[in-house]
């Protein structure tokens, strides 16, 4: 009699303890999930703000509001280009990699608009082989590099800034290069440039995450003529046919 009573009590206690622990674990997991979601939402919000780039937007709108009095058609084109740029940028940010053709189109739209702001002070050159259109590259790497060149590399005075965007295949890799003939990095110091918060660290980290340190390469430095030169290397892969 005594023994079966003890057994019942014992089972009850163990049972309660077991379910209590499961309840605690479930709660902890719920909390962790909620925290993660909050952080993700925060990151997405920040990302969105970075993509919309309010200052680029305001400056471009200012240019449109000036150009429209001189050349309505050109102003109209700028409005279309700005909308396309925004649309492509938002779409690109939804995946880790996009087709090279899209990445270059984003760069082209961006540079078209910048040329309207700088007029003859900005010249652009593209060397992108057409057969590379479907190769995969990390999203939104070209535009931030071009923006850096324009923001930090412009020399004051009459001389025009020449930007060049190149993409070519080298064995099993795809090479992307952005270079300019501006001021370059001070003292050619790449490490200092990384520390300046130019978004270069972000790109380097993304490359490392996507391809590992072996396959992904990120080189920054000054070209022979003193301008900045940034080279990315990613494994050559084609987008799956849809």
């Amino acid at each position: 009699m005594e023994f079966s009573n003890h057994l019942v009590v014992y089972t009850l206690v163990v049972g309660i303890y077991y379910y209590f622990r499961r309840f605690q674990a479930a709660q902890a997991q719920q909390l962790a999930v909620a925290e993660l979601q909050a952080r993700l939402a925060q990151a997405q919000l920040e990302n969105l703000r970075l993509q919309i780039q309010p200052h680029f937007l305001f400056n471009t709108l200012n240019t449109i509001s000036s150009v429209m009095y001189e050349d309505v058609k050109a102003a109209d084109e700028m409005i279309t280009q700005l909308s396309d740029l925004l649309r492509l940028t938002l779409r690109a940010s939804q995946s880790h990699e996009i087709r090279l053709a899209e990445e270059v189109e984003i760069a082209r739209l961006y540079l078209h608009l910048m040329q309207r702001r700088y007029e003859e002070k900005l010249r652009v050159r593209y060397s992108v082989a057409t057969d590379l259109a479907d190769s995969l590259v990390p999203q939104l790497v070209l535009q931030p590099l071009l923006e850096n060149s324009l923001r930090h590399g412009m020399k004051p005075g009459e001389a025009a800034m020449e930007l060049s965007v190149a993409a070519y295949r080298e064995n099993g890799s795809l090479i992307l290069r952005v270079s300019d003939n501006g001021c370059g990095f001070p003292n050619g110091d790449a490490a200092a440039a990384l520390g300046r918060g130019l978004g270069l660290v972000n790109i380097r980290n993304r490359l490392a995450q996507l391809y590992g340190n072996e396959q992904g390469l990120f080189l920054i430095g000054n070209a022979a003529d003193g301008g900045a030169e940034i080279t990315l290397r990613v494994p050559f892969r084609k987008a799956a046919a849809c």
Partner: protein
Amino acid sequence: MNAATPLRALVVDDEAPARRKVLRLLRDESDLQVVGEADGGEAAVAAICKHQPDVVFLDVQMPAMDGFRVVEALSASKIPLPEIIFITAHDKFALRAFEVHAFDYLLKPVSEERFRKSLERMREQRAQTGNGLEGRLKAMLAQIRLETSFPDRLLIHENDRAYFLAVRDISWIEAERNYLLIHCGRKTHTLRGTLDALEEALDPKLFVRLNRGSIARLEAIRELRPWFHGEYKVLLLDNTELRWSRRYLKSCPQLRKMAFSARSSRS
């Protein structure tokens, strides 16, 4: 009353379409004459020194030398400063623009209405001070007065905000490591800085340094009680008790003028 001489204006922006926009807006202002343009900071300083405009429309973000560095360079030179109207896509510089006494701060894309309002305000100001010799002298005197008088307000920066604190609301100020605690009745404001620096900004007719760590406003003092070693205990109206140390008593310039012995009530 002399007829208003035209306002002389200069436009600075490294982007040509942005300059053209301002020039287009200025074309409709009949009392304004554009005397020059500049596409960069250095060019701006040179043009301003050469043409001596009354007002400069100044972009902030320009390569090599930005709008604020232009103002710095002009302040360091001998020429009278023109009125500055900053025009920029960034709203984060507004406070800094205020600190350099900019006349106005317009955001890109520039709204025609706000632009014209700004010019209207400038005309009103000039009408009040006049723009002949008398007007310029008055403006110079006002500037000198501004630079040598003591502010009746302190500009307090707190994280992202900034606000004014009337100096007459302060009871006493206490130093705490790198910070200053400004006691105003029931509120306390925290400010980074040193007591020595703040002392220079405060009118010695209103404020007195009591010891190494505190400054009190004279009118907030209720009474002083002589204490040991030639020191005084200072009782404020809000009952705070402070100590006026001997070292600072000795070096207090106002005290000699203020000290009188009252007839003892016992005689």
